[in-house]
């Protein structure tokens, strides 16, 4: 059936412009054989029965299907073509060369002659490709082609295009009829028969149907069902990348589940490549080392070095590690090949935002708006630009536009929620994040953000709940661990907090993260240790913090406090001076300084000074000391 992707088989001729006048590009390998369903396995419906004979030996694209068709003798013997077959060939060539009118005209005639569901299917295909979804649906609807699964499938596709969800579900069916029905697959004897000479079976229609079902459920906002359907699709046939992609890009699965799924998928032995490729799409946080290993293998053994999708996967990892600079360069190499690679753009835009590259954001947004004015990523880009120049209202408008164009697009939702969070409108932010939670059940981020909002609202219980939820999905994000630590800190459970921060630090090291995150982890650790009374440790952590950013007055104020507690008045005063030189109006620092100064008055370092001076004085007035001593005796 319709393996429309040209990449399907290296054997097949590909439609290239200079490919002889006799365009043979019928890529539709239509090998009904791939189909694991009855409809196609019956020779009667075999779409190729018509035209394969004509093919000369050289063009083997039908070779694959030859076996399939199982049609006895079709491809091997030269039999004169029937009228219908001639017309079919004509129709096909027309379709391949995008002569839709011809294809439509001839297809119609064939159908009239044969009334074969297969011909109906191909005619509908022509309509579909022309964008006449309604016509296609009308053609396929009805009882006469009910038996043909491929017709059903195309009908479903049309209905999805028409956004007639209920009807589509009606056609596709609410459940997978072949599920659990072992016989179905077995019944198709093709696997048994042809397994030797026929290794590439195309995508099982069953999987495609499941995929359609998932798509429908997704649009009906029934995400649980959608997830199940997509899973079913991938499990039915690993080649159904479409379904796999939906699962991953929409974050339907938690990182753990994603890896489990990968294990469950039934890859043929020969398809290590596919397994490796799929593994690069999964969440990198959970298995970063495994990812690197797989990536290396793909590069070394499969010569995929420099492939843009691999690059993208690498960029994703870099982004997680907060190596924004490097990530940006990788993204830029991808974008050099394909300026508007919509897979890459969200990552690229986030990178630009993190690096505060307003100017580039501006340029990219404008380019996008010029070439893709109606694409959701365009609006996302503009939204990010506005948020980066701190025009929150504008950015919110653009984010919401983006979500309207693509209601399932996670970055836009998160950005939308962020605009509220930035302005401190916690309630609205929470409701926006909650939408994100609903849409992307497998992503821990919305939970994390929700937790952070509640934390800001000082609602520790709810914050804890959400963060724990987040932990259930992914327990490796240092940011998350850090936030949890903060909750423990606020609850006064200091040792737990310290433990969390240390875990966070450990994860950050594991991921080789490189960012400001260390800043907050270290300063949190420092604060915990300060509260625990481990002043020296706290100070060491503060030194680490200072290495990263030396212009935060709070750090100096806290250090000053510690010095005060350690009774190192002089150092306290000096540190507090630095704090005040950074933010002169900081009341805490100035109060601390006042305290330190009054302590300085009573104890100070005057003792030390006195000794110093005594020694010096003695040295200076070696001889004249006596009279001075006289005064002192008085």
């Amino acid at each position: 059936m319709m393996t429309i992707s040209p990449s399907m088989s290296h054997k097949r001729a590909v439609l290239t412009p200079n490919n002889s006048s006799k365009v043979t590009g019928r890529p539709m390998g239509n090998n009904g054989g791939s189909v694991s369903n009855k409809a196609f396995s019956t020779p009667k419906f075999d779409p190729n029965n018509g035209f394969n004979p004509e093919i000369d030996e050289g063009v083997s694209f039908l070779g694959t299907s030859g076996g399939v068709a199982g049609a006895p003798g079709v491809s091997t013997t030269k039999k004169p073509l029937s009228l219908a077959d001639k017309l079919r060939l004509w129709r096909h060539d027309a379709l391949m060369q995008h002569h839709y009118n011809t294809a439509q005209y001839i297809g119609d005639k064939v159908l009239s002659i044969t009334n074969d569901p297969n011909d109906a299917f191909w005619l509908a295909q022509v309509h579909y490709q022309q964008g006449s979804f309604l016509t296609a649906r009308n053609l396929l609807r009805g009882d006469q082609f009910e038996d043909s699964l491929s017709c059903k499938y195309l009908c479903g596709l049309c209905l999805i295009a028409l956004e007639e969800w209920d009807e589509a579900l009606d056609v596709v069916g609410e459940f997978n009829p072949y599920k659990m029905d072992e016989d179905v697959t077995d019944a198709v004897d093709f696997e048994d028969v042809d397994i030797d000479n026929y290794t590439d079976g195309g995508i099982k229609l069953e999987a495609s149907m499941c995929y359609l079902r998932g798509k429908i459920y997704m649009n009906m906002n029934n995400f649980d069902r959608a997830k199940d359907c997509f899973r079913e699709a991938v499990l039915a046939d690993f080649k159904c990348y479409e379904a796999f992609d939906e699962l991953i890009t929409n974050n339907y699965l938690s990182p753990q589940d994603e890896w489990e799924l990968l294990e469950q998928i039934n890859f043929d032995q020969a398809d290590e490549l596919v397994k490796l490729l799929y593994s690069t799409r999964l969440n990198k946080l959970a298995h970063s080392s495994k990812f690197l290993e797989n990536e290396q293998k793909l590069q070394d053994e499969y010569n995929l070095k420099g492939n843009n999708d691999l690059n993208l996967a690498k960029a994703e990892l870099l982004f997680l590690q907060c190596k924004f600079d490097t990530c940006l360069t990788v993204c830029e190499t991808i974008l050099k090949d394909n300026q508007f690679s919509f897979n890459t753009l969200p990552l690229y835009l986030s990178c630009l935002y993190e690096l505060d590259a307003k100017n580039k954001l501006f340029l990219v947004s404008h380019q996008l708006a010029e070439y893709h004015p109606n694409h959701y990523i365009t609006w996302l880009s503009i939204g990010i630009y506005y948020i980066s120049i701190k025009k929150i209202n504008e950015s919110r408008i653009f984010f919401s536009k983006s979500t309207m164009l693509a209601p399932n697009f996670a970055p836009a939702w998160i950005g939308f929620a962020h605009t509220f969070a930035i302005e401190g409108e916690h309630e609205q932010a929470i409701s926006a994040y909650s939408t994100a939670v609903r849409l992307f059940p497998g992503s821990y981020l919305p939970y994390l953000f929700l937790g952070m909002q509640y934390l800001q609202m000082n609602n520790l219980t709810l914050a804890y709940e959400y963060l724990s939820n987040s932990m259930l999905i992914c327990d490796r994000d240092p940011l998350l661990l850090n936030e949890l630590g903060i909750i423990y800190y606020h609850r006064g459970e200091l040792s737990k907090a310290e433990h969390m921060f240390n875990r966070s630090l450990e994860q950050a090291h594991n991921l080789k993260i490189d960012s400001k995150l260390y800043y907050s982890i270290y300063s949190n650790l420092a604060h915990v240790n300060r509260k625990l009374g481990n002043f020296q440790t706290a100070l060491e952590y503060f030194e680490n913090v200072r290495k990263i950013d030396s212009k935060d007055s709070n750090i100096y104020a806290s250090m000053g406090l510690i010095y005060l507690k350690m009774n190192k008045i002089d150092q306290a005063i000096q540190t507090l001076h630095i704090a005040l030189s950074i933010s002169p109006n900081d009341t805490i620092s100035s109060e601390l300084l006042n305290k330190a100064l009054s302590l300085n008055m009573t104890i100070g370092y005057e003792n030390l000074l006195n000794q110093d001076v005594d020694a010096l004085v003695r040295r200076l007035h070696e001889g004249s000391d006596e009279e001075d001593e006289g005064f002192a005796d008085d």
Partner: protein
Amino acid sequence: MNVEQYFHLSSILRQNAILLEELSFYQGSKWLLEAVNSMQQPSTEDQLMVVREAPHLLKLGKESSSPSNEEEMLLAYHETNKIKLAKTYFDCKEYDRAAHVLKDCHSWKATFIKLYSMYISGDKRKEEESDGILGQNNSNNNFYCNKNIPVIVKELETLEHPNLNSNSHLLCLYGIVLLENKNSTKGQEVLFKSLVLNPFNWSCWLELLSSFTSFSEATVYLSKFHKALQNAFEYKIMLLFFRLTVNQVFFQSSEEINSDLATLSAIFPCFSYLNAQKALIAYNMLDYNNAEILFDQILLSDPLRLDDLDTYSNILYVMEKDSKLSFLAQFASKIDKFRPETCCIVANYYSLKFEHEKAIMYYKRALTLNKNCLSAWTLMGHEFVELKNSHAAIESYRRAVDTNNKDFRAWYGLGQAYEVLDMHLYSLYYYQRACSLKPLDKRMWQAIGNCYEKLGETKESVKCYQKALKISTVVDTQLLYKIGTLYEVLNDIKTTYNYMKLCFEEEYNQEVTEDTSKAKLWLARYESQQGNWSFTYKLASDISYGNSNIIEEARALAREARLKLDR
């Protein structure tokens, strides 16, 4: 120093100067070359004799770094081109470009120039972002910093080859960056390591010096150097220079400093730097006359050298030599109008003429030219004090302290400014800081005593005044009287009596002052309370100096005593 030593030392200094120049440490390079050119040459015959026997001495030493294999050699060969290009960019002030050219280079020199360019570029940007001298933003929430520093630190810390710990120049840069990041302990250690490896980087010594906050800190490092540095002749020379400078900067005056000076002067007889140190030491000892003479000599021997002349103008200012100061200002302006030193001299001149606004303008100009100009901040603070603008004065002093926390005048100024604002806790601390820098200056102790007094800590106050008394060379009657009154506050009349008596007795040793009169009056009053009217009369009638109140009261007392005695 024999002839071989001469050649050895001069070629080492010159080689290091060339290297420093390649690394864009211009000041260090200049200093070394000045030193080389001011060395005492052995007689020509001796030189010829030695050179005939060992002609290699005259050769310019080639760099000894020879890469171990061809691959590295090739790499070095190609990198050299890039390094030269980057260096040219650096000299053309295109710092970012210089760093960019060396993006993928790995040799230590390339790394150094790249990171140093980044450092300078960040510094430049910081300056551009800040809002001028004492601008609006400086006092607000903005605290400008060099944004490239975290990147530089990270690159240095993750340097792959084992270069960092064995390369003095990279270590030096690392130390500089750490100091800029206010991480002085670590920075000092790193600079120390760098200098032990290669003590000929004068810029590095100066950086280390600038990080010391107290003399004791400096002495710790001095002794560390004594232990760690190689025992070779040339290494010792560098350490001597450092020790001399440390002693000068921290106002030390001991035998050590003089012997060091003598040793060095014998080797580098016409080194202006040494002569300037001599003058500065005299100035620190408040020996203005000598300092003036020394500076005059420098002006003759090295007439176009502007360094340190701002200090000379300070001396002339204190000595109130208007005409000479005016001459110096004209002279400096002719050499280079836009040197911070020149601006400071001119500002000093205006200050002496009571044109404080103009003086401030010139200080600001000096600071625009060099934000770290040491004295300009402090002097500008003084001008603001003259104009009664305490807040601006505080800001200036603060910046002075930030750039050079060894300037006791700035700390003292801060104390004074806060005293005006009646914030005695603050001024106490600042006076303490000043005092720790100059513990032998009685003004410091007096100021601290005064603060304690204001804060109601009379006992502490007494201690401070006593300390001040101890270190003053001539017995200060004012202090004696002060201590006396403080003991009175403490209700210790006996001690008060003793101090008053001591104060009064100074009248015979020195001259009559208001304070002795006051002491006398107190004594008279005391005697009157005791009923010793004859003493009272004797003392009171003797008071003839002081303001009208004192004299009035003395007369009244005398009259009363007279009456009592008559009765």
